């Protein structure tokens, strides 16, 4: 019998994405072209947003050989007027998967700049051409790189690097990739169009491969306030995250070598003098407040060892056993392990505890999470069954899991801080809707911030009726973090909420000309797939969407009802004008009279009534 020997190899992130590119939206030439456009445009907009620059984004797609049938190689270029990227970071940023500057917790279109690298990777494997990156951070010199990705090593290969003089800051990225514009064109144009609706402060142009130019100038001059980076909310935490935070909060016992001893001497002002152990301790006590943490730890150790610098030089700390209050060390002189007791009442003992066992639970919570103050921290500790002064470093695995569970379940934390979110704002949204659709009626709402699983989110929604809008509505424009979502609308939570609405209740019948614009902002949008096209139906998000839609629908219903009344009044006046004279004619002969009755009075009164209703309707439309 032969046996198959399994091979276990570690693969690089580049390799992983290379073999799983479907996940990121690079499944076929049509979808890939569209996804690549998105990734670069979104990166450009994100870069400008972060620096508060009004974005000018140019998108250019050109066929390498226009006469070839699709799918064929295209050159995709996106230029922006953003801050640019320092030359030293460019190779890593564009030549490595999972390298980026967006790891903080705040709202942005993309998370890690992963998609852009994926697009570069896709371009490279389909056309074997390098990516060209041109960047200027100072508006004077521009670095031009040609890069390839070493997929197996996940490392950039610089093909060419030159510099030249320019007059503008900004970044330009250009890749060559296999695409199908004849099929992807509609989506890309829709994407650019819809992006400009949700980014009214950006100017976006698009030169398509057929020579057409699409220009969407900015029509709002103010950029919405940028989001701030914030600490995590306890509801959005998991065990792994806590473990990492504890590691960050702990300090290692410093290695006591010559350099360290020299540092301690210097800090105590004893660079030249040799003092006795007691004298050193006295000096340290006086200077304690000015000492660094490392120095304090060394002094604390010395206090239990009762050693001066000379002796200290001849030992190595082996273990600090806080439970048995013993300090173990190796004595080089005697070549054996020794130990001393530690006095738990000593202030030095406390110092060591902090270092070895980490912060007390309450300090950890208040310092490292948002929305937890000292009172809440104590209350929580009680709820979770921990002592408030429990040291983070002493938590067992099971205790960590319990802590994580309790953090997610405890209900007295305030809702997540939403300053990390960057909604567009009701005003710019309404301006955009009015400019794009020229509607007879429009309304927008921004819901207060809410949260799902500890991630804050805000729902913004707009509704518009009539004007330039085509019938057959509602047409739904879905956005998440200012990205238009164009694919897979069927399984989206917004569509679900819209479809479940009984429009008849809001006096909307038939195939009405109306649109809904929905924008969900969150530090983490719960996408159903890595392709970022549809939002999962989290109950909290669904609820906010529903409330927003109900509010807008009621406004629309009020408008429709007024509009209906005005229509009715007009119709009624027309009916009277048509039928009353006929009735007059017939009854005149029937009553054997010579002259028709004076029915004008009735008609005039009704004409006035209908005019009043029309006037009211116009007032509502203008509001």
């Amino acid at each position, binding site marked *: 019998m032969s046996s198959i020997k399994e091979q276990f190899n570690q693969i690089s992130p580049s390799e992983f994405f290379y073999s799983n590119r479907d996940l990121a939206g690079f499944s076929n030439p049509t979808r890939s072209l569209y996804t690549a456009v998105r990734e670069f445009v979104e990166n450009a907009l994100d870069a400008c947003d972060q620096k508060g620059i009004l974005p000018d984004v140019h998108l250019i797609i050109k066929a390498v050989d226009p006469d070839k049938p699709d799918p064929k190689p295209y050159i995709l270029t996106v230029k922006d007027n953003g801050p640019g990227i320092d030359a030293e970071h460019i190779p890593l940023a564009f030549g490595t998967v999972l390298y980026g500057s967006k790891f903080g917790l705040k709202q942005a279109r993309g998370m890690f700049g992963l998609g852009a690298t994926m697009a570069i990777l896709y371009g490279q494997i389909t056309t074997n051409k390098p990516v060209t990156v041109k960047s200027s951070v100072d508006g004077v010199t521009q670095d031009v790189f040609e890069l390839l990705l070493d997929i197996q090593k996940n490392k950039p290969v610089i093909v060419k690097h030159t510099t030249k003089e320019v007059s503008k800051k900004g970044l330009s990225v250009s890749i060559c990739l296999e695409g199908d514009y004849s099929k992807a064109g509609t989506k890309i144009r829709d994407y650019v169009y819809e992006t400009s609706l949700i980014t009214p402060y950006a100017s976006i142009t698009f030169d398509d491969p057929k020579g057409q130019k699409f220009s969407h100038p900015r029509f709002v001059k103010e950029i919405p306030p940028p989001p701030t980076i914030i600490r995590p909310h306890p509801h959005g935490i998991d065990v792994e995250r806590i473990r990492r935070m504890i590691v960050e909060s702990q300090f290692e016992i410093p290695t006591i070598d010559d350099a360290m001893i020299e540092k301690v001497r210097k800090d105590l002002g004893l660079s030249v003098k040799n003092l006795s152990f007691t004298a050193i301790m006295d000096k340290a006590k006086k200077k304690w407040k000015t000492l660094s943490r490392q120095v304090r730890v060394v002094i604390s150790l010395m206090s239990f060892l009762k050693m001066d610098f000379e002796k200290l030089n001849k030992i190595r700390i082996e273990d600090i056993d806080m439970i048995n209050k013993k300090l173990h060390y190796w004595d080089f002189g005697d070549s054996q392990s020794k130990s001393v007791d530690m006095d738990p009442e000593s202030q030095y003992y406390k110092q060591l505890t902090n270092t070895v066992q980490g912060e007390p639970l309450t300090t950890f919570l208040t310092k490292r999470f948002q929305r937890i103050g000292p009172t809440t921290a104590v209350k929580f500790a009680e709820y979770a069954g921990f002592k408030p002064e429990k040291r983070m470093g002493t938590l067992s695995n099971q205790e960590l899991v319990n802590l994580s569970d309790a953090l997610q379940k405890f209900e007295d934390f305030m809702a997540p801080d939403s300053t990390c979110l960057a909604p567009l704002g009701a005003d710019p949204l309404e301006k955009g809707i009015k400019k794009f659709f020229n509607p007879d009626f429009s309304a927008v709402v921004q819901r207060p911030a809410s949260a799902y699983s500890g991630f804050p989110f805000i729902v913004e929604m707009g509704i518009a009726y009539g004007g330039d809008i085509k019938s057959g509505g509602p047409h739904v424009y879905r956005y998440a973090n200012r990205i238009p979502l164009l694919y897979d609308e069927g399984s989206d939570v917004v569509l679900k909420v819209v479809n479940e609405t009984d429009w008849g209740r809001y006096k909307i019948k038939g195939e009405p000309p109306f649109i809904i614009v929905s924008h969900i902002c969150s530090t983490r949008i719960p996408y159903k797939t890595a392709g970022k096209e549809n939002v999962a139906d989290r109950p909290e998000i669904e609820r906010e969407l529903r409330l927003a839609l109900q509010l807008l629908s009621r406004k629309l219903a009020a408008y429709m009802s007024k509009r209906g009344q005005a229509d*009715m009044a007009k119709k009624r006046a027309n009916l009277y004008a048509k*039928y009353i004279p006929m*009735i007059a004619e*017939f*009854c005149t*002969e*029937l*009553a054997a009279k010579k002259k028709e*009755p004076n*029915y004008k009075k009735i008609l005039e009164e009704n004409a006035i009534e209908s005019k009043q209703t029309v006037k009211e309707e116009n007032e509502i439309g203008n509001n």
Partner: protein
Amino acid sequence: MKLATTKKEQTKIKERSKKADEKQKNILEMLKSHGVKIYDDLDNGQFPKFSIPSRSVSNIVYDKKLRQYILGSNAAVRSSRNSAQLRSFTQLMWLAFFANRLTQERKSSTLRDIYYSSQAFAIEFEDQSESDNIIVDLEAVTSKPREDFHIFPEERSSIFGDLTIEYTIPGYEGKKMNLSNHPDGYSIGPSLTTAELVDTSAEIVIAIEKGGLFTRFVEEQVDKKFKSIIINTGGQAPRSTRTLLKRLHEEMNLPVIVLTDGDVYGEHIAMVIKSGSANAAHLRDLTVPDAKWVGVWATDIEKYKLPTIPMTESDIKRCYDLQKDPRYQDGVWKKELDVFLRLKRKAELEAFSKYGLTNITDKYLPQKLELAKSL
């Protein structure tokens, strides 16, 4: 029959035409009063309106005293202010106006004529059933049958027998006619319905459901043998025929008997002649409460061993429906209905042909005429 020549006869003619004039005058006065009311409303800046008795099922009740269905006291206001009613208000107004012309000019028109005439006045009726409905509205408002306004249905039934009439329609005023001169019978239309009934030697009116049997009866000289006037109702009797039956009964004192097929529909044809239909609950003077249904009864099927055919589902359903009708709660009506339900079979008038073509006139009819006296 001779034409009227004596002085006495001539006075009679004058009286008769005076009577017809009187009736016409009343109709015109009534229409005019409605017109004046609406004229005044408009002139005063008011939306004209009038009240129409409700013809919904809940407002149709059986009047035991009158022995027919009548409308209850529920009425609806039709207002020209209400935009949903404005159109039908105008249509009704036009119809009154048009009926006024018809009556003044003594011209008759059919239901279909009305539908087309409306178009000359820019009155839109969706279809004839809409215009027919407005005609019923006019009847309900005025409590007069459409025939009074010279509006007649297309359906025609026929009459034969020794009956002298005198026309009142324009161009024939004073002209007389005996209805036994033409063996195919005379169709009962506007001129006959409005004619004066002058003289008859008949002692009974036999209404028969089917044209075939009507011809047989004429051939077999049932009119002479049994001193009768024979009327073919052509299925459910049209209103003009029912009006004529009523007049023959009241003005000439003739009893009316009804012969129908031996099934539940036949039984109901007889009932409608006797006490009217729910459809015409807004009208009076269409019924002959003393009319008698003499056959073919369910019990006759067994008695005369008639060939039968099975009842259909809808026949049976109709039986159950009629069992709930207050008029079918006693007497021959209830008894025969029950037997029909028991037999679940039916027999046509022609079934008697099994015993020879003249069996129905020679044997069956005499027995039934004899029986009618005791009913």
